[in-house]
Every structure is written in C-alpha cells, then in structure tokens.
C-alpha cells in the first residue's frame, strides 16, 4: 500500500505534464545550451523567466522546486567561494589576505555561475517532477531510434531501463520488510562506528539480493512463456503524439535560444 510513487514525480494534471516527453527532453537539452550560451545577466534573466513560466504551468509547488537545489548546495557553495576568493580582477581588491583576494569581477562572476547552476538544477528537476519514469524511458527510446541504424539495441536498452524502474518500488518494499524483520530481531543500523554499520547491513543485503535474483528469474521465465522477442517489430500500447502544447513548448524554447544568442551578440559579457 505504501509508497505508491518513487523518485520525484509530482502527480497532478497540468500543461507541462501533458507535453510530449520527447519534447521535454529536447527542451531540457536546449535550455542547458541556452544557459551556457548566455554571456550576461540579461541572458540568464531570460532563462529564469522561462523557468518561472514552466513552474507556473506545471502546478508543482515552488517550495518543491526550490528543494531540488538543496541536493547540490555544497557544489554551489564550493563554486561560489572558490570564485570569490581566487578570481583575479583588475583594479583594487575589496579585501586581501595572503593569497585570498576579493575583486568586483570575482563577485560578479561567482554570482553568474551560481545563477547558472541553480537554473540548471531547477529545470532538470522540473523534468522529473512532471514526467513519469515510464514515459521518460519511452521518450528516450524514441529519441535514440537513429542509433538503430548502427545496430545499437535501443529497444533492449529501453526494456532494461523500464524493467529496472519497475523493480525499484518492489525492491524498496522488500527492503523495508527485511529491514523491519531484522530490526525486530534486534539489528541496529543506526549506532556504532562506520565499520560496524556496514557489517550491520549484511543481514539485509543478502536476503534482498536473493529475492532480486529470484524475481529476475521469474520475470524472465514469464516473458519467455509468453514468447517475448525483443528484436521483433513491436507496437506501443501508448503512442506518443505531438499536440498543440508541444508546439507552444517548441516555440518557447526556440525563442529562448534565439533571444539568448541575440543578447550575447549585442550586449557582450558580464564584465
């Protein structure tokens, strides 16, 4: 009953949720390109505007989107601090102590990098918030189709991915059960030194592995019993179709990339 979901998918119905997953993946790639093409704060402002639009039309709570940044806090802080203290600008530093020096350019550059990172992380998280893992794999499979020409097993790869995703909630349930059972027998996963804690995982890991192998075996047999052949031409239960929403999304991203390029050409760098 518990944990119907895993990962971050936020289950509401919205404009962004309904956009074709393939387009969402392309949107993300184009967005990342735009972020790195942006050479000044105006360009980043344009990217931020698009992010705000995406969040508004996805109905995902703003707090959840902000929370996505939490995971990379250390990376962001590290980048900021490094750039503030080691960027060598022209003119007088605001502050100097041995090899550390704070210049105006350093502050600007570090703010620029941090904004870039934050935008990047937030839009990537929007993809996983609004797309179920299953449609994400579907989208990837469809986008990777050209690789079939060089005999790359795209279908098998997609099958492996979707099976792996399918198994995550089952195994996490199983993990929960085994952990509870061993805790009821006095296993202690929280205290002791790291070495002890690693040792404490063994009674959970072994049963989990055994059950994972058993499940894989059973699944393989069930698929074979139904004469599953991966390399045959297969049809899809849910076909992906482009709709007006995808057209809107396409124009938004095209406008963003063009806008950022124009801003770069006409306004130059941040400094």
């Amino acid at each position, binding site marked *: 009953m518990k*944990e119907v979901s895993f990962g971050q998918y936020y289950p509401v119905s919205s404009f962004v949720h309904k956009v074709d997953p393939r387009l969402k993946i392309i949107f993300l790639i184009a967005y990342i390109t735009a972020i790195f093409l942006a050479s000044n704060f105006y360009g980043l402002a344009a990217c931020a505007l698009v992010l705000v639009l995406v969040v508004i039309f996805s109905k995902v709570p703003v707090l959840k989107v902000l929370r996505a940044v939490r995971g990379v806090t250390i990376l962001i802080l590290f980048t900021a601090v490094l750039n503030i203290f080691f960027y060598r600008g022209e003119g007088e530093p605001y502050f100097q102590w041995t090899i550390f020096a704070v210049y105006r350019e350093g502050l600007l550059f570090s703010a620029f990098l941090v904004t870039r990172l934050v935008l990047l992380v937030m839009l990537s998280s929007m993809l996983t918030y609004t797309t179920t893992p299953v449609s994400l794999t579907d989208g990837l499979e469809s986008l990777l189709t050209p690789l079939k020409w060089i005999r790359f097993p795209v279908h098998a790869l997609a099958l492996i991915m979707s099976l792996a995703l399918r198994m995550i909630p089952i195994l996490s349930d199983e993990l929960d*059960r*085994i952990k509870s059972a061993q805790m009821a027998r006095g296993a202690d996963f929280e205290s002791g030194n790291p070495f002890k804690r690693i040792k404490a995982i063994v009674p959970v890991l072994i*049963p989990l592995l055994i059950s994972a192998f058993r499940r894989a075996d059973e699944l393989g047999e069930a698929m074979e019993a139904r004469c599953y052949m991966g390399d045959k031409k297969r049809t899809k239960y849910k076909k992906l179709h482009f709709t007006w929403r995808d057209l809107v999304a396409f124009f938004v991203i095209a406008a963003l990339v063009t806008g950022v390029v124009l801003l770069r050409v006409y306004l130059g760098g941040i400094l």
Partner: protein
Amino acid sequence: MTILAEHLSYVYNEGSPFAAKALDDVSLTIEEGEFFGIIGHTGSGKSTFVKHLNGLIRLPSSQKHYRRPKAKKGRPAPVEPVLKVGEYDLSDRNADFYGLRRRVGMVFQYPEAQLFAETVFDDVAFGLKNFEKKKNDADLEEAVKAAIEVVGLDYAAVKDASPFDLSGGQKRRAAIAGVIVTHPEILVLDEPAAGLDPLGKREIMDLLHRLHGDWCKTVIIVSHDMDEIAENCTRVAVFSEGKLVCALPPKELFLKAEELKALGLDIPLTAKLRLALKERGIDLDCDFTVDSFVRAVLAKRGEGQ
C-alpha cells in the same frame, strides 16, 4: 504484558499526494495470555497496527505538542493516542525500544525471506547475539538448540546446514526459531501459515500452540484463514479501512456472518455448515471449532432419537 491502545491513527506519506490513512482511531486492549486473532481485508490496517506493537512504527511523540493541530471551534479537541505494551509507553520518544523488541517477537509474512546466515545455527543465534551481547557460548548454544528443537527441526541435522537448502516449511520454522529464541513474552505473527501446504499449515499451528503459554505468554496472529482463526483464537479483532470494527471471541463473532460478508470477509466452514443446518430448521450451539461443532451435531442427533 498487556497491550493497551487508544485512539491510534496512522497515515502513510502524510502531507504528500500519496497520503493513505492506514489506521483510524483504533482502541484495543489485548490481555496477557490471549491467543489473539486479527482479521481484515488487504489494506485494512492489520499489519500497520501490528508493526506499532514493537515500535517499528512509532507514534507521533507526545512531547511535540506544537506540531499537533489546535482544537477548532465546533470540533472536538484532538485526542492524544496512547499505546502501552506492558510497562513500555510507546508514545514516549525515548522509550526503550530495544528492550521492547526483545520482549515482543515479530514474525513477518513469509519470514523465510529474512534468512541470511551461512548456517541455520548462525541465523537463529542472530537475534540472541543482538539482544544479549555478553552471553557465553555454552548458554548461546543451549538457547539456540532449544529454539530449533521447539519448532520441530532436528538440531543435529540442520545446525550446520545452509538455511537456503531447507524445504519451504523447514525454512519457515527456522525463521520462526530465529524470533522465538529470545523467549519473547508476546509473539506476533503475520500470516504464519500463508503459502504452505495443508500439512505445513497444521504443523505451524501446532507449533504455535506448543509455544503459547510456556514459551510466549501471548500469541497474536494476523490471518486470512477463518478456519485457522476459529480453531485457535480466544478472541478476534476485525479491521476494516483502518478502523477496528469489533473484538469478540470467535463464538460470538462468527454468528455475524452477514456483517463479515459485507466487510469482504469469509466465515469458517463450521459457521457455513451451521447456517446450512439452520436453513433446514436445525439450530446448533457451538463455538465454531470442529470439535465443538461435531459435539453439537451428535448432541442434536441424540435428541432426535
């Protein structure tokens, strides 16, 4: 140890779109010495209730008053949940959960999934080593031997065998041995006989009767098998949609065939036979064990002659 639960509620994934109410204001007392049954539909909250009993699911701490919803006008003030197992007050965040788990043994559904060690001996000894760290080898061996023998396995034959080489029923009994080895006062079993053949089922139920009394004072089983419940339990709690419907001895419970059917539950074969006889104008008075049913039938026949 007596189990006292009052106004117990639990919500999975609280505050998320997947929130699911698993327990809703459950109040229930289980006395020491009972062979208690818990029945209910899948997802009725049975397992969630049972997991509370040894602190695997904890109550929202009673010290965190600031997080509780304030009483609103026109609505009754929220009631504090209470859960006491013997002297352990589980609404206390700092309760000795470790000590509690030693005294409340928990056998989960398909317990053979928890086997992990290289030999049956090591697996059974796992709980004992966790709870009694300073036990010397001789005592340890004696306790493990007693546990393996009480579940009906041949100690000499299985102690050095891999638990994965045992048969299905043997695996389950080895897993139960791993729980009862610490002599818990309360033994909770979630579907102990699920997936076993009729012989295996009977062996498990016999085992539970062997354990009940001397080894574990109180036995609580969660089950779907009404015959098993009617035959063994002193009292039965019925759960539905997170709520406790009633807690009655089987003798009274299985008279309510219609209500149980409405909850999606079955009745034992003896109760079905009693209903069929009733339709034909024969009213039997029995407590729904096979033995008492046969007695009642024979008594009726005696009257008829």
